[in-house]
């Protein structure tokens, strides 16, 4: 491992174009505010304003990007101070923006994919009466997400972190009338809270030990801390990342989040928000790169590897179009977490995979949305089939995304995923073999479930012909309008080309933030790994074709299935596990506390009150209204006082 890479010292002041960086936050926030405040009056033009603010932010981001590339590599980390946010005693939280290659990469991804999905939503949500509000929430999300990646301290990051959580909650529960959507929104919100507690504790620890929460100070001083503190912060940050990114053991909310409209699934729950965990760990790379943080990184890697397997296995068994994609997202983020857990050898690859994944997974989701839009919102892949002819553009763009995801040679996924697998092998020793092997196995499973999806949705017999949708309408699949196909085409182009272009330049571009990419050579050469990966993916795809492509599939899901399939259909018992380990003991604890509160605390309080009331009721009886008895008691009192005085005097 390399030693500490000190990046914090060379922060420049933002100037020129970068001075306007606050526009990135304000534009979408302005859009959200206008759309929410104007109400129904904005119904006619709301979607246009909503899209325009994000496209404007994207245009500015491109400008800022070229402004940054014109600087020398060492000057590319800049900060723009906006105002002092919280200033109490020794706590001074500055509200500022950090403009460096990492945050700019994310800004381009968020605003770029965000713009495309805003455009797509114009078409997708055209039948929704509340389209304006939808765009307001989307704008709110973009603004919060930009704050998350642009903030120059952990508290600003946390602000954005909660902001995207709120937007995610609002959008998952978009179809409020449906029970499952409301439940899914709550579930997402609650499970995110679990992770947020970790992040919050990490921030508290930073403030306690380093006296600040700004990146520049924290990363400067982190090397001086004890190993215990470093590992604790590392693992708590990971817990935060697990919550937001749907990683083991907090993965169960992400598939349920598919209850939201498809553009939301594409933007928030595939391309951007769920990758915030990867961003958090990559951003904290000065911490994870420390030799003392070895254990924390190992935990990160284990979480990534476990999650990528879980996602793949469950993805093979589901029959819901979007949920399969959701588990695929879980598993691909597992790859990213695994990559950033590898340390300097993997940060850049994690971000690379994040970007290419942003393209192809958003494209896949938009394709799924297009299919569902044309099929009366039917999401059960067993009721689809043979749609390639009816929806040629969707089919072609989706297939390109599919090929990119399974790592077809020279498409995006090939460059990013292979790099992660190779980096995992290069970890060396038994760890290298285990993590590399898991990543390789994951590639095969990915190819399997994605091919299954492709065959069941687009190829084979059109099983929907003799069926009716839930509301009794017949299916009339049709290609979607241009606002929907255009973003799909753009994303498909990105899925094809992004990997080839980015894999060359990205590590160097990110070096000022993430440190130089350390190339380590494992027991297998990169060529061997590339060939192995493609071969295993091909085998996975081949098995899927043999199982699903050659015979007709039943319209209802088979009930008599083997144990692995049943386990996978039940989310590998992830929900049961959470239920048994946390939910039920939590309920017991609550009941116990309620009992203690009612009997113990309330009993004490009420007992004191009742005792005082009763005794004063008795004391009251002394007040008889009989004047001479008062005189007697006065006399008695006087005698007592005098007796006391005399006793003191003569004692």
């Amino acid at each position, binding site marked *: 491992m390399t030693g500490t890479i000190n990046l914090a010292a060379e922060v420049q002041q933002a100037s020129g174009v970068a001075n306007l960086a606050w526009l990135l936050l304000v534009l979408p926030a302005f859009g959200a505010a206008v759309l929410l405040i104007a109400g129904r009056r904005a119904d006619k033009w709301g979607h246009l304003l909503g899209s325009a603010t994000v496209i404007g932010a994207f245009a500015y981001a491109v400008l800022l990007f070229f402004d940054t590339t014109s600087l020398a590599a060492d000057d590319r980390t800049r900060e723009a101070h906006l105002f002092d946010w919280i200033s109490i005693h020794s706590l001074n939280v500055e509200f500022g923006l950090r403009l460096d290659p990492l945050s700019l990469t994310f800004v381009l991804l968020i605003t770029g994919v965000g713009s495309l999905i805003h455009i797509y939503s114009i078409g997708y949500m055209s039948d929704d009466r509340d389209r304006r509000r939808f765009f307001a929430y989307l704008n709110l999300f973009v603004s919060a997400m930009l704050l998350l990646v642009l903030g120059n301290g952990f508290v600003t990051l946390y602000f954005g972190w909660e902001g995207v959580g709120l937007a995610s909650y609002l959008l998952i529960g978009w179809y409020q009338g449906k029970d499952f959507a409301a439940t899914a929104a709550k579930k997402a919100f609650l499970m995110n809270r679990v992770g947020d507690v970790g992040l919050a504790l990490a921030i508290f620890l930073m403030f306690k030990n380093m006296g600040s929460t700004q990146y520049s100070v924290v990363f400067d001083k982190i090397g001086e801390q004890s190993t215990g503190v470093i590992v604790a912060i590392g693992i708590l940050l990971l817990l935060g990342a697990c919550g937001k990114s749907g990683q083991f053991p907090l993965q169960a909310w992400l598939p349920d989040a598919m209850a939201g409209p498809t553009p939301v699934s594409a933007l928030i729950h595939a391309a951007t928000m769920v990758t915030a965990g990867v961003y958090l760990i990559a951003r904290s790379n000065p911490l994870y790169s420390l030799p003392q943080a070895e254990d924390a990184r190992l935990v990160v890697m284990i979480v990534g590897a476990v999650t990528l397997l879980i996602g793949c296995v469950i993805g093979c068994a589901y029959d819901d179009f979007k949920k399969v994609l959701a588990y695929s997202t879980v598993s691909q983020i597992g790859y990213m977490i695994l990559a950033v857990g590898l340390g300097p050898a993997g940060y850049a690859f994690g971000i690379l995979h994040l970007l290419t994944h942003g393209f192809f997974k958003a494209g896949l989701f938009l394709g799924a949305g297009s299919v569902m839009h044309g099929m009366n919102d039917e999401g059960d892949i067993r009721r689809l089939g043979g749609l390639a002819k009816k929806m040629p553009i969707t089919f072609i763009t989706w297939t390109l995304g599919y090929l990119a995801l399974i790592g077809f040679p020279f498409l995006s996924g090939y460059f990013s995923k292979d790099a992660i697998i190779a980096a995992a092998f290069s970890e060396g020793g038994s760890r290298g073999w285990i993590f590399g092997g898991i990543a390789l196995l994951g590639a095969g499973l990915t190819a399997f479930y994605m091919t299954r999806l492709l065959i069941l949705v687009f190829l084979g017999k059109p099983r929907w012909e003799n069926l009716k949708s839930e509301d009794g309408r017949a299916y009339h699949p049709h290609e979607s309008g241009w606002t929907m196909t255009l973003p799909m085409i753009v994303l498909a182009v990105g899925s094809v080309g992004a990997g080839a272009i980015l894999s060359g330049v990205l590590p160097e571009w990110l070096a000022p933030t993430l440190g130089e990419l350390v190339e380590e050579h494992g027991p297998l050469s990169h060529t061997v790994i590339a060939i192995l990966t493609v071969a295993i993916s091909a085998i996975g795809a081949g098995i899927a074709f043999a199982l699903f492509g050659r015979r007709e599939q039943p319209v209802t899901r088979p009930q008599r299935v083997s144990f692995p399939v049943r386990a996978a259909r039940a989310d590998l018992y992830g929900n049961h596990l959470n239920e048994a380990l946390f939910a039920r003991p939590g309920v017991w604890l609550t009941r116990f506390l309620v009992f203690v509160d009612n009997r113990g605390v309330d009993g004490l309080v009420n007992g004191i009150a009742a005792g005082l009331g009763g005794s004063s009721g008795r004391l*009251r*009886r002394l*007040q008889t*209204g009989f*004047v*001479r008895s008062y*005189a*007697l008691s006065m*006399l008695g009192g006087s005698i007592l006082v005098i007796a006391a005085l005399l006793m003191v005097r003569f004692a």
Partner: protein
Amino acid sequence: MTPTYYLLLSALLFTIGAVGVLVRRNAIVVFMCVELMLNAVNLSLVTFSRINGGLDGQIMAFFVMVVAAAEVVVGLAIIMSIFRTRRTASVDDSNLLKY
């Protein structure tokens, strides 16, 4: 002439006054007994003053007389108004202010 007799007389007068306050019901009599107690105190004040050879006690006795005079004015007025409303001067009958 020993001061002891004066003090004994004072104690006797005070005791008669105190017992009178406790056992009599007529407000006027109770009132007169209070005066008796005050004057018993005056007597002992003057006696002690005489024993110590100073004038402090005698001056204090004058203060007590002034206060007693003022008290008589207020007290008799109260007793009068109670008698007018209730047609009785018994202290035991004025027992409305209780629990």
